[in-house]
Every structure is written in structure tokens, then in C-alpha cells.
């Protein structure tokens, strides 16, 4: 595992209400690596992903993408390189799944694959393609959101609890999608509470007291 570092966080700190939630946090994400992060509620996992994706500015430290700090990059450059799956699907609820992906494709200048192909890839049945996302179940929304990530041209994926609401085939599909991505050299970071998903990852970290620690394997 000596592939290039894609995203690097150095001495990251983030404070809220006069208290540090993240402090002295270092992280290296290498190409083709699948990292899973767990941690107690309120440990700052979501905030960490938001900082890594450039949606939030850190209080201390900085994040570099291919050697350039995020704050020096234009937002659309970051958007093109880093794909993020948040709690909210990142889809317009009153547009259909297909329309959402088509819109996104048009917005970023046709860089992503055809909408139908992506929706089929995440296992959404064709009958749901023309349905409004508002009518989707939790799991279906998660799949549609995943289609957005899969279709992006990004080489970093940040996934915030991607397995939420997914059924067993859905989880297996998610694993396959991530494996396919890492095979292409994409670096994947996932936040999850799911032990099964944790164990599939290449690297397991735990966010504790504001820092990432390797998870102690209990046999």
C-alpha cells in the first residue's frame, strides 16, 4: 500500500461553543484505499467529513487535495474531485431520480455517465426512475444518492453512513460499488456504525477524543 496520497488532513482542529471537538487530527487517504471510521455519537464524524469536503472551514490545520490546500482551490474544483454522501440525499425531492441525475450531469458539463445506467447500477427498478424522489423510501433515496456519487468524476468519496436504510442486497451492492471504485484508484472514506461494513474496509479507524485511532481488533 504505497499508492499516492490523495487527500491529507494535517493537525485539524474544529471548535464549537468554545470547545474543541476535533483536535490534532491527522489523516491520509491514499488512492484505492477504503477507510472506515466509527465513533460515538457527537464525536464529530459528520463534521470531519464536512471539513474534508470543503463544506466547512476548519478552526485549525488544513486539508490538502493532491497537495493543494482546499482553501486555495475554487469550490467547483473541489466539487469535481470530492464526492460526498450526506445524511440528506443531495437530490431534489420534487424531481425524479432520472431528472436529478440528468440535471447534475448538465450542471457539471456532462462529466457523469447516463442517468439510466447509473440508476440501474445502484439497483433501482426502472419503474421508479420517473417517480419523484419524495415518494422514494429511505433505502431507495440512499441508493439514488449513491448513484450520484458513483456517477461523479471524483477521485475521493466521502460517505456518511451509506448503509443506513439499505436492505441486505443493498449493502452487498454498496460493497461491490466501493470495491469497483477502489479498483479504479478512488479513495473511499466511510463513516459507519455497522460492524459488518467496518470489517469489509481496508483500514478501520475510530474517532475518539478528537483524533483518529486505529481500531483495536478484538478476537
Amino acid at each position, binding site marked *: 500500500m504505497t499508492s499516492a496520497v490523495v487527500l491529507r488532513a494535517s493537525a485539524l*482542529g474544529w*471548535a*464549537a461553543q*468554545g*470547545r*474543541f471537538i476535533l*483536535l*490534532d487530527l491527522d489523516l491520509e487517504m491514499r488512492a484505492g484505499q477504503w477507510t472506515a471510521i466509527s465513533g460515538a455519537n457527537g464525536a464529530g464524524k459528520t463534521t470531519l467529513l464536512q471539513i474534508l469536503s470543503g463544506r466547512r*472551514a*476548519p*478552526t*485549525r490545520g488544513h486539508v490538502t487535495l493532491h497537495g493543494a490546500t482546499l482553501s486555495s482551490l475554487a469550490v467547483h474544483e473541489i466539487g469535481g474531485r470530492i464526492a460526498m454522501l450526506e445524511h440528506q440525499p443531495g437530490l431534489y425531492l420534487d424531481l425524479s431520480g432520472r431528472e436529478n441525475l440528468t440535471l447534475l450531469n448538465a450542471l457539471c458539463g456532462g462529466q457523469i455517465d447516463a442517468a439510466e445506467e447509473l440508476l440501474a447500477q445502484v439497483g433501482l427498478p426502472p419503474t421508479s426512475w420517473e417517480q419523484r424522489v419524495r415518494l422514494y423510501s429511505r433505502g431507495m433515496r440512499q441508493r439514488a444518492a449513491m448513484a450520484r456519487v458513483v456517477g461523479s468524476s471524483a477521485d475521493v468519496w466521502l460517505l456518511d453512513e451509506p448503509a443506513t436504510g439499505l436492505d441486505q442486497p443493498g449493502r452487498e451492492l454498496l460493497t461491490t460499488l466501493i470495491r469497483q471504485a477502489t479498483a479504479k484508484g478512488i479513495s473511499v472514506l466511510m463513516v459507519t456504525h455497522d460492524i459488518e461494513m467496518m470489517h469489509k474496509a481496508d483500514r478501520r479507524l475510530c474517532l*475518539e*477524543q*478528537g*483524533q483518529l485511532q486505529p481500531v483495536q481488533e478484538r478476537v
Partner: protein
Amino acid sequence: MTQTLSADTRVPIRVPKTLIIWIIISALLVQASLLWIALKTPADVNLGIVQKIFYFHVGSAFAMMLGLTAASVMSLIDLIRPSDSADALARSFLEVGVVFAFCVLTSGPLWARKSWGMYWTWEPRLTLVLLVTLLAVAVLILRMLAKDSTIGRRVGAAMAVMGAPASYLIHFAVKWWGGNHPQVIQGGGIQNSEMRVAFWLAVVAILSSAAVLVATRYRAIRLQQRTQALALRLSARVLRRQRAPMETS
């Protein structure tokens, strides 16, 4: 726009001597102008003793105008080059501006009652002051209601910047709307030399007091920022110490 978290040691904890001297001078100026207005100026021929409100009314209006303008300018600077001191200045100017706006809005109607026979009239300058005051108070509330202080700071600053051209246009709109405000200064209305001295003494006293208020408030906000930065530093130290046994085990 990240918060500057280095504790700024340039903020002295002791009250600087110059500030104390300045406070004393302002207090003396206010006393002097009060005495002068009470003892030396004659009562107005038409308005009687009520006319004497005028001296403080105009001074407060100056202070309000300068304060709110400076608040907009500092907010603009804070948006372009964020710094804790620009933010603190913007807030101090805004707050002091609002205080004097209320002074204007209380002394104005008292004067108007005697002069025009009613407390309120939809006269351009009154309307302008009322609208600008409402806007400034709204910006002040906005800063408090934001879900986090960085957002409040940005939104408050943006709105303060918007307020400047808006006030300028409100000024024209209400002017053409029609009205009659005493044109005391432009018309060379003050003939009496005692009155002229009283007028300028009051203006200087109020502007000096306003500046003292801004300086004091600025100092308070800066000290608060310093305390917050120090508390944050302490929280970092506590967190690191909590970790220490974990790392050695």
C-alpha cells in the same frame, strides 16, 4: 471566514490611562454644555424653554449618523478581510449608533410637539431616522439569532453593508415624499452667539461621549474575544491531557 483564535495579547486587560482621561474630559464637556445651555442661552422667543432640547437632539443625530455609517464601513472591511478587530468595531459602532438613534427618536417628538403642535409627523428626516433605526435594530437582533456565531457575524455584516445604500435611497424617497423640517443650520438660523456656542459645545460633548462609548464597548468585545480564545486554548490543553494516559497504555 474562520475565527481568529490566537489570543490577541494586544488587548490590554488594564483600562488604558488615555481612555480614563478621555472619559473624564467627555463627562466635563457634557456638564459644561448642560450648564451653558441652562444658564447662558436665552429661551427661544417662540418655542420657549423646549427649544433647548435642540442642542442635544442635533448632536445625537450626528452621533447616530456617524456611528451607523462607520458600522457599515467596518462590516464591509470585515467581509473583505475578516479580522476580529473589524468585527468588534462594526458591532460597537452599530450598538452606539442605535443608542443615539433612540435619543434622536425621543428628543425629536418632544421638540415637534411644541414646534409643530404634534408629536409625530411624516416628515422626511423623521421617517428616515425611524426606518434606519428599525433596520439597525433588526441587524442587531439578527446577529443574536444566528445558529452559530460565524454565521451571525457574516449575515449581520452583509446586512449592515446592504443598509448603507438602502438608507441613502430611503433618504431620497422620503425627501421627495414631502415635508417640513426646520432648516436651522443651513438657513443660518442661529443668530444669538450664546446659542451658537451652546450648539457647538453640545455637539462636541455628545460626539466625544459617543466616541468614548464606542471605545469602551470595543474594548469589552475585544476582551471577550480574548477570553474566548484563551478558553479554547485551555480546552485544547484539557483534551490533550485526557488523551495522554490512553496513548501510553
